[in-house]
């Protein structure tokens, strides 16, 4: 990580010189400069908000940690202006293979069709992602990023929250209209609002080792059940940039963490896995995990996002990616409420939409974990049956669960308008916009969405008629003399489009409503609904 800046200086801020009875006031304070807090701050700043971003450390955390970033996350980061940098550095992959013992039993491709700007996943160490996000933050004067600022006190009031912040120069206080806690799994703000939560703890321990080696393995996700080098357990191998390979090994529940972590104990096991011992350790960590979420993501003027609000097992790339989906969901809503353009009730839909997504992620990741670590002899027997059936049946292959990888949730949302027309396909309201290649001003629909202003946008398939879009709604026109062309017909097909079809997209790129022949009145009604005026 030599070429990226990871250590940041503490700087005294004028807010710290305010008298105690007269603290500085800020519209939005975000706590936690991890991927979620940084991305949220950038999104808010790009929408014109000033953001104070606090972090208790002065450096980017070590270790690769989250390494799989999804297509949806990359599309979000494209909107924040850093998607390309992530992809350039990251390792692109879409194929996963599952082995049982020595045999490959199943292979999947997460993005089987061409015509998307972004791949299904990239692998990238979290510290790179954070470093690029910090670089982007530095370009945005509206974000005031304060390192070594630790929130130690919190008071909720009707129209603001008051924070006490500890620094190397001592404590100071600030007022905030809204506070977003992105301070991770051990969120101290969660404790301060008194919203501790319980969940299922998985007793199995996993060991992560990042090893550096020049290897000829393909850039795929390889998962083993009962591998010859680690009998009776499971293992995962995944490539990261810089010739680093991520290895996850499932350990026995009673394994002693201190003993297991010693390089002299890890090394022989990994040498057996790789078939050689020409590697160096970059990072070794041992973890157990929980699957759980807060009951409410919204506590008055405090919102929780990412690991602070929900935690899942790491098999499925649902941690950081779902946190980033939280950020994109919250940013535009908070911006509208701060501008007085939407009622505060719009924020409640952040909880509605994202807590349902968290439930889905928890359900999926619990299933994966249960499959990897059966809890009873009969569960083990059923798993054994699946693995053996997989050798000769398609259904057996599909039942193997070595981690179902993250796809964006479909929201059952009060912001969506119910379909009134006949649809044979295409994204229904509450679904994130599918990408498709186009030609003209943009090469992909996701690019056209950014060019249209990353706001409420009408994606309209031309029938030659003028489009009467509501004020302040962007327009992407497909077809017609000044529209984008769809030479492969993929945009039309993916949106089940006929001439005249129009989709109303939200500022986070989700479908709010769709129409075969939109009238201005219908668009106004859908927009009112999608902005919380209902």
């Amino acid at each position, binding site marked *: 990580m030599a070429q990226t800046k990871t250590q940041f200086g503490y700087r005294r801020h004028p807010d710290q010189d305010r008298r105690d009875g007269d603290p500085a006031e800020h519209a939005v304070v975000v706590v936690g400069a991890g991927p979620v807090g940084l991305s949220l701050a950038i999104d808010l700043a790009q929408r014109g908000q000033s953001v104070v971003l606090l972090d208790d450390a002065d450096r980017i955390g070590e270790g690769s940690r989250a390494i799989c970033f999804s297509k949806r996350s990359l599309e979000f980061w494209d909107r924040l202006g850093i998607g390309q940098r992530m992809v350039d550095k990251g390792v692109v992959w879409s194929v996963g293979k599952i082995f049982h013992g020595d045999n490959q039993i199943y292979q999947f491709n997460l993005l089987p069709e061409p015509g998307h700007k972004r791949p299904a996943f990239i692998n990238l160490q979290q510290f790179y992602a954070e470093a690029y996000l910090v670089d982007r933050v530095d370009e945005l004067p509206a974000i005031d990023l304060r390192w070594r600022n630790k929130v130690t006190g919190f008071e909720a009031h009707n129209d603001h929250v008051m924070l006490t912040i500890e620094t190397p120069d001592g404590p100071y206080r600030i007022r905030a209209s809204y506070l977003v806690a992105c301070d991770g799994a051990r969120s101290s703000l969660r404790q301060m609002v008194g919203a501790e939560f319980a969940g299922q703890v998985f007793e199995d321990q996993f060991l992560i080792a990042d090893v550096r080696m020049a290897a000829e393995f393909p850039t795929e996700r390889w998962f083993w059940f009962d591998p010859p080098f680690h009998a009776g357990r499971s293992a995962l191998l995944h490539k990261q940039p810089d010739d680093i390979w991520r290895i996850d090994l499932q350990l026995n529940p009673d394994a002693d963490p201190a003993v297991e972590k010693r390089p002299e104990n890890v090394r022989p096991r990994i040498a057996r896995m790789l078939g050689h011992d020409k590697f160096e350790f970059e990072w070794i960590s041992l973890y157990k995990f929980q699957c759980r979420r807060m009951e409410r993501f919204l506590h008055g003027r405090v919102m929780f996002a990412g690991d602070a609000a929900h935690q899942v097992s790491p098999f499925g790339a649902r941690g950081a990616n779902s946190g980033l989906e939280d950020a994109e969901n919250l940013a535009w809503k908070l911006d509208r409420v701060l501008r007085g353009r939407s009622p505060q009730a719009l924020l409640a839909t952040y909880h509605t939409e994202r807590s349902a997504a968290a439930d889905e992620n928890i359900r999926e990741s619990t299933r994966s974990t249960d499959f990897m670590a059966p809890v009873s002899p009969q569960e083990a*027997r*059923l798993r*054994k*049956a*699946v693995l*053996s*059936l997989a050798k000769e*049946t398609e259904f057996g292959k599909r039942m193997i669960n070595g981690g179902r990888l993250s796809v964006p949730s479909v929201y059952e949302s009060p912001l969506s308008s119910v379909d009134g027309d006949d649809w044979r396909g295409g994204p229904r309201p509450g679904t994130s916009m599918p990408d498709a290649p186009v030609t003209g001003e943009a090469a992909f629909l996701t690019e056209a969405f950014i060019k249209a202003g990353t706001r409420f946008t009408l994606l309209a398939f031309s029938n030659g008629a003028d489009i009467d879009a509501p004020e302040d709604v962007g327009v992407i026109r497909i077809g017609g003399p000044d529209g984008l062309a769809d030479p492969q017909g993929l945009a039309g097909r993916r949106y089940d489009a006929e001439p005249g079809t129009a989709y109303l997209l939200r500022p986070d790129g989700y479908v709010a409503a769709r129409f075969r022949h939109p009238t201005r009145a219908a668009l106004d009604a859908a927009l009112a609904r999608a902005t919380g005026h209902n």
Partner: protein
Amino acid sequence: MKLSTESNFTKPDDAFRAVVEAHRGLSEAQSADLDAALVLILANHIGDIGVLREAIELAKRRMATADQQAQQQQQ
């Protein structure tokens, strides 16, 4: 679709016998293995999660009833 509890085999004895014979000579562990595979194969063939859930419910209800009867007999 709804779980069918009508008699679907022309010769129910053949069906029962086929399952019984499959278990002949197997240890308890082997039998449990066989059952696990059989359940998954048949569940996939049915291919309807509603029907599968109904079947599970029926099987579990029967267990509860059997337990109650055993308790009553003890009293």
